[in-house]
Structure formats: C-alpha cells, structure tokens
C-alpha cells in the first residue's frame, strides 16, 4: 500500500464483531449481529436499511451513546468499548456531532441559544452565528424552535452539531420527518459541512435515493451489513428527488 493511499484512508472508526442484544423480559432482541465496519476520515457514508434493521443502534454505538454487548469499536487509536461513562461524555463533547430525526432542539431556547448550548462546553467552537450562516439561517437566529419550520429546525440542529467542529457528524434519519424540498435543503447543509469542513459524515436513511450522494453506501439488514457499495461519482443533494 502506497503512503498517500494509506494517509487518505485513515480509519476514524473501526468496528469489529459488534453485537447488541436487548433483553426484553423473556425475549432477547438481537439488534446487531456481528458488524465489521470502517469509516474513513472525511468520507460521506450513508447507512441504508429498512426500519428496525439496527441502523440507529449502530450509530448510537459509534457516537458513544450506547455500548455494544460484544465486539470492539475503535475511534482512531482508542477503544470506545473500554470507556466509562465520563470518558464517553468527554468523547461525545469533543469529537461527535449528532443530528436526529426529530431535531431534539430545546424549545425554550432560540436558534442561536440552542447552538450556544453546545459552544458553551466545546473545546474549539465556531461562532454560533457563523455556524447558523453555514446552514443558511443567518436571518433567523433569534427565533424559537416553535417559530421555525421543520426543515429550519433541522438546519438549526445541524448548525448545533457542527458548531463544535466535530471530527464526525452522525445523522439519524435527518430528513425522516421532512418533505422532499426541505429534506434537500437539509441534505445540502450536511453536504456542505462535509465538503467545506471535511467532517467525516454518516447519514442514516431508509431512503435509497439519498444514498446517491454518498462516497460509500452501507446496506444494513436484520442487524448485519449485507453489502457495501462505493459510488464512483456522488450526486449533489440538489439533484436528488424522491
């Protein structure tokens, strides 16, 4: 392997044999059944799969929200599975940006305050207004979530996620609650973050169209990775339609 190639393919996440079992009284739910996965610096990955296939579970484990029942997850050279609660918190605080399907904004805080909430505790944050401008919401910074449309709320959520300048951006069905046009605006924002800031980005979706904007598409089904597609050319979000 040539040196530049190795540098390009710096592994951010390396998951090996990750399984997750939920105990629901009598029954065990196998959400993940042995996942091996690498995510590389700067790439844009889409995790594609039916509802209930285990995508969120996987993303939550990568993001340090949850820990696997078995298997190991490396973040760069560190073993996430060995982190205790405090270390996981630090990890999320310093390295991970999350975007959720239902935005999870704090309704009592304005857009800019929602972003400040994160910059308050981040190590190397952007200016909150700056990050809202990145998602084209420079005009709406003093609006409360209730005064924003779903797409706008989701863009605030993206601004909030990237304001700390995270190493990875993890988005769980960011367009799941949105119509096509709005969804595209949101995807454009994510695309822009990935391109301009070089943030490693993973987006979960059950919408195959979105997969076209990714570097790689990881197919998940019943707790397993069934295949990985590499897109030779990425389609810009603005050209998508579903």
């Amino acid at each position: 392997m040539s040196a530049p190639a190795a540098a390009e393919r710096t592994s951010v996440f390396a998951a090996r044999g990750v399984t997750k079992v939920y105990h629901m009284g009598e029954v065990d739910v196998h959400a993940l059944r042995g996942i091996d996965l690498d995510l590389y610096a700067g790439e844009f990955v889409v995790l594609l799969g039916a509802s209930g296939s285990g995508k969120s579970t996987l993303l939550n484990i990568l993001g340090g929200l949850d820990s696997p029942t078995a298997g190991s997850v490396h973040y760069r050279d560190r073993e996430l599975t060995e982190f205790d609660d405090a270390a996981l918190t630090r990890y999320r605080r310093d390295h991970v940006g999350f975007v959720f399907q239902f935005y999870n904004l704090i309704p009592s805080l304005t857009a800019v305050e929602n972003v400040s909430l994160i910059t308050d505790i981040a190590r190397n944050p952007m200016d909150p207004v700056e990050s809202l401008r990145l998602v084209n919401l420079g005009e709406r910074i003093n609006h409360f979530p209730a005064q924003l449309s779903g797409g706008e709320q989701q863009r605030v959520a993206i601004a909030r996620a990237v304001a700390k300048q995270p190493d990875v951006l993890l988005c769980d069905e960011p367009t799941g609650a949105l119509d096509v046009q709005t969804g595209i605006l949101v995807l454009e924002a994510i695309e822009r973050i990935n391109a301009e800031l070089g943030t490693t980005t993973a987006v979960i979706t059950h919408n195959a169209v979105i997969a076209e904007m990714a570097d790689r598409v990881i197919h998940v089904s019943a707790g397993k990775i069934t295949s990985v597609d590499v897109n030779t050319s990425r389609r810009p979000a603005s050209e998508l339609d579903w």
Partner: protein
Amino acid sequence: MILSALNRKALRDLWQMKGLASAVATVMACGVALFILSRSMLFSLDLTQRTYYERYDFADVFAGLKRAPNTLAARIAEIPGVARVQTRIVVPVNISVPGLDEPATGRLISVPDGREPVLNRLYLREGRFLAPLADDEVLASEAFVTANNLQLQDTIAAVINGRMKQLRIVGIVLSPEYIYVIKPGDIVPDDKHFGVFWMNENALSTAYDLDEAFNDVSLGLLRGASEPDVIQRLDDLLEKYGGLGARGRRDQLSHQFVDNEIEQNRNMGMFAPTIFLGVAAFLLNVVMTRTINSQREQIAALKAFGYSSLQVGWHYVTMVLMIVAAALAAGIPGGLWFGRVTTQMYAKLFHFPEFQYRIYFSVIASAAGISVVAGIVGALTAVVRAVRLPPAEAMRPEPPASFSPTLMERLGLGHLVPPVLLMIVRQLERHPIKTALSMVAIALAASVLVLGNFFQDSVDYMMTAQFQWVQKYDMAIATNDDVADRALYEVGRMPGVLRAEPTRRVAARLRAGPRTRLVGITGIRRDNQLSGLVNMDGQETPLPPDGLMISKKLAEVLEVNVGDYVEVEALEDKRPKQRVLIAATLQDFTGLRAYMDLDALHRLMREGPVLTGVEMLVDPLQQETLYRELKNTPQVAAVNVKKHAMDSFDKTIAENLRIMKSINLLFAVVIAVGVVYNSARISLAERGRELATLRVMGFTRGEISAILLGELAIVTLAAIPLGLALGHAFAWYMCTAFDQELFRFPLVITNRTYAWAATVVIIAATASGLIVRRSLDHLDLVAVLKSRE
C-alpha cells in the same frame, strides 16, 4: 452572553411553568415564614427575657411570710449560695380607680426609701421614682395604667389597712416579676382590674404595722448555687415567721407564662414548617418528575452533545434552587411580617420594657438550608432519573403507560361504571403513590384547618366550663386574713347580694415521698351551689366529706392515686401538719388545685368557723351600689367580677385566637390550592393530547373537564375524612404536649370545625379546578395534536 445557554433554558422553562412553580414556591414560602417566625420569636423572646432579667436583677427565689424582723435578713444572707437578699412588704389592696365603677384589686409592693431595690428593679417608663419618705406616691404598672387610661399625677384610692388613702401615680413602671400580670386565682389577665403598685417602704410599714419587719423576701443566688438547698434552708428559717413556702423561678407565675410561650415557639418551630416543607417537597417531586419526563429528548440531546450526566442533573437542580430562592424571597419578608403581627399579639400579654422581634441571620441561613434540602429531597428521584437516563434510550419517546384493569373491574363491577369514570379510576390506580401523596397533602390542608379551629373550640369550651360550670358565682371577694364567718351574713345583707357562700383558702405544702408542691387548699361547703367541681368532660365530681380532692395533674406530679395519703403542711396560723387522704381527683383545666370540705378543712386547721372569701350571686340592677359598698369595706382585699374576666378574655386571648385563625386559614388555603392546582395542571399537561383527541372525536368541554377534574374531585373528597382524622390526631398531640401545670387543653373539636375544614378545602379545590378548567376550554386542538409528545 452572561448567562450560559443552559441557565437560560432553566429560566425559560421555569417561566413556562410559572403557575406550578409559584404554587410550589408559595407553599414553601409559608414553611419558611413559619420557621423564621417561630425560631426568631423563640430567640427574641429568650434574649429579651434574659437581658431583662439580667439588667433588672430578677430574683431567683421568692418567698412570702407572715412577718419577720428585718434582722432576719442578715441570717438569710448567710445561707450558702445566696448572693443578694431583698426584703420587702407585699400586700393585697382593694382599690378604686377614677372612671371605674367597680372595685379593682391591687398589689402594693414596698421599695426602700430613696434607693432602688437590689433585686427585681423597676424599669421607669414615664415619670420619676418615688420621693424618699413620701407616703402618698406610688409607681404603677404600665398595663394597669394603659388599660384604665390613666396618666401621671392621677390618683387612685386604696384601702390601706382599713383606711382609705389617695395615692398619686408619679411613675409608670415595668418589673421583671410582672412580665405577665395575672391576678391570683384568675386564668386570664385582667389589666383593667388588677394592678401592681410600688410604694415607699416607710409608708407601707407604718400603715401595716410592719415597722422594722417584712413579709416577703427575694433572693439572688450565686452562680452554681443549689436552688433546692437554698429553698430548703430558707423555708426552715422562715418557718416560725409564718413562711408561705419559698419558690424558684420555675414556680414564679410570670416567669412560667413567658417560659411556656418560649417552649411553644420551640415546638411550633419544628411542627408547622415540617408540614409545609413536606408538602412543598411533594409538589416539587410531582412537578420535576413531569418536567423531566417531558424533556426526555432534550436530556438525550444534551447528553449526546457531551453534557455530562452531572451537568444535566445540576441543570434541574438549579431549577429547583430557583424555586427555593423564590420561596425564600417571599418567605423571609413573610416571616418578618408574621413576626410583627405576633409581636403585637404578645404586646397584649407580655410587658417587656422593649420587645424587639429580631430576625437572626442564623435563622435565615437555616431556613435557606432546610428549604434547599427539602427542595432537593423532593426533586431527587426525578433528577436522578434525568441523570440516569441513557442518552440512546431517551431518543425514543416514553412508551405508552401500561394500564391494567382496576380493582372495580376485577370485582366484576366494570360494566356498571361509565367509561369516563373508568378512565378516571384507572388513572388514579396507575399512580398509587402519587395519588396517595396528593391525598395526604390535601388531608394536611384540612388538618391544619382543624387544628387551627381546635384551639378556638378548646378555649371556648374551657371558657364555658370556667365561667358557667366552675364559677357559677357572679362575684367573689377575698379577705386579707381569715375572718369569723359572721362576715358571711354581713356580706349577705349587702345590697344586691342574692346568695353568698363562704370559701376558705389555706396555703399549704403537699408532700408525697420526695415530691412536694405548694398549693392553696380551697375549702367549700359540700352543698355549695356557686363553685362547680367540673371535669373536662363536663361531669361534676362530688366533694368527698373528708380528705382532699386534687387536680389530676397534681396527682400526677405527686405520683399519688385516689386512696393514697399525702402529708399536708399548712403554712398559715397554727401550721398543722397532717396526713390526709386523697379522696378524689378532678380533671380540671388550669393550675394545681386542691379542694376540701369546709368543715373538714376547719378540723385540719384546728380552727373555728372562719373564712377568707365569699362567692355571691348578685342582682345586676344593684351592682353599682354593691360596688360602692365593697370599695369601702376594709377587710376586702380583692374583688373578682366574673363579667370582667370574661370581657378581658374577649379582648386579649379571643382576639389573638381570631388572628391565629385567619393566618391558619391562609395557610390551609395555600396548601389546598397548591396541591389541587398542581395536580390539575400536571394532569392537563400529561393528558392534553389525549383530551384533545377526545375533543376532536366529539366529546364536549364538560365531558373532558369531568375526566380531568373528576380525578381531583375523588382525591379531594377521599382526602377530607383523612384530613379530619389527622387534624384530630394533631389536636390530641397538642393536648398532650400542652398538658402542663399551668394549662391543660381539653380535646374538644366541634362538628362545626370539621364542617368548616371540609368546606374550605372543597372551596379551595373547586376554585383551583376552575382555573385549570379555563385553560382546558382554551385547549388548542390543532397545536396539541401536531406536537409530537
């Protein structure tokens, strides 16, 4: 940005739930105010009492006697432990006051000519001290002067040793001996008809043939001296001078009352704030549980972005702390205000040169401390839940609550009940602990009302008992010394006297083993009709032909039972000592009393038919004439008019009770409204979506109100009997706590009190229900259904 975004969130969230937050803060503020009130009052009273005693040399030991030469003072001073001795003359006098038809009673106390007494010094409020050798000047107690609207230079007439004498008031004074002024034998102060006066020793000793002699002595003790020892030795010394038994401060009447009040503040300082802070903690628990449940996803997001669990927990704790801060901000001035009200109540009862109600920083600090603790304890389970919430878990909305068939349904009665009622009952059964705590909190509101009214009921009952069953006479007189029973016929012939019965009082020491008490034994005729020997339950106990009938409390104190013997040492006349049978006990309300058949008492005293008092029924039309006659009767040392005692009671105690009752009402309403409003708002928030759905499906406003408020109606109605029972239990506790030598409260709670407590709680609950119902009417159906939660 000065405030961090998280703190802004805390502030905005609080503002969002301002109704709930202020309900909680108000209940907590009541607890804070009560705590500050009783603790500060406790410290203020204690400090005022101690400084007064110290500055004005309040004596440690007090003794009355018949007569002893002044030379005895030196021997008294030699008793080990005695630091200072003050001998003096104390005599009861019958006085007439300008503007007062009826005779009043006074106590004349000597002060050394031209110098201050070494003990029980006087505080001069107005005017001057006595001119040496002046024999027509007196210093008058402030309470008496105020009650009778007297001024400096006014004169009162006193029958001094048989001769009417005009006495000019040259000074208005206060004495540490008379902080609480009460006429011997009375149960409430009557400042208008009882006054204390100080006069030059020379003048008094001449008038009473007590030249170079004294009939009263006070001692100041050295630090570390043994009081019982000194009392024993003093009693021994005074025995042959007609000693009436020495007593320490704890048997000094005024001191007893002040101490009693201090003790009461100490008890209330624990009891009342506990109730309020307990309810506040419960409310906080409900509110914070609700808040945190509805913010699961926000909590998850915070954690996902790297806020630590502790930071999240602290965030909710700051919300609690802000509520506590609001409670303190209202409770501290509230405590100050209550303090002022209470100080005014005290001013009627306690006569201090200056009573300063001070708020102590340490009290405020501990109020803040316990409020913070109560708040955090209340919110703890909810906050812990926020801390523990795994971030991934929180992304999914709270699962739908699981319901199960209610008890009613399991009993097969389900089909009898309309579905709306089933919804209500299931909701109640689903949160058994919350339902139970709501019930307890509302019950506490009812119990506070019962307790507040209980004091009134009890005192009313006591007064009825005292003024109608015990004192069946209209007027009673007492003489200085025992007089031949011929006097009875003379009194009987006075104008307006319809009936007259003799009484004989003997100062005595009762002894049972090592336990002794100084008491007055009252001799009355067994066939008397004017003194009732009535128990708390209203039953009379007949006077036994022989032996003593004593207060049940006295029997307890002496640890004797009916059938036992006590040693009676009479402290007057021939001072006979004899073993006497306890023939009966009487469960009475005040003091430690002893009664005996008049003839039996004469036999005990080895005396003929004498008396020291007469009780009378009086024709109201001839009252004035009788008053005039009595004012001029030299032997009469004291006149007790029942009507005056009743009036005085109405002016002091009754009014204080009324104030206490309104404050109580306020508190109970705060709790009831706080709890009901709180529960209704929370239910509305939790079930807004469900109720809106029902509205969309065609339910009327009335029907959904019934679902929401029906729950509260059931809880409130169920809480009321519990509250009444709890109130009864608190009242019982108070009765036992106040079972003292001075006073015993009868456990009397009228049905009116129960009805009143229930009514107030129902009204308060209905009012808060209606407030919430208004927001139900404005329920925005679309908005509710659109929101995800």
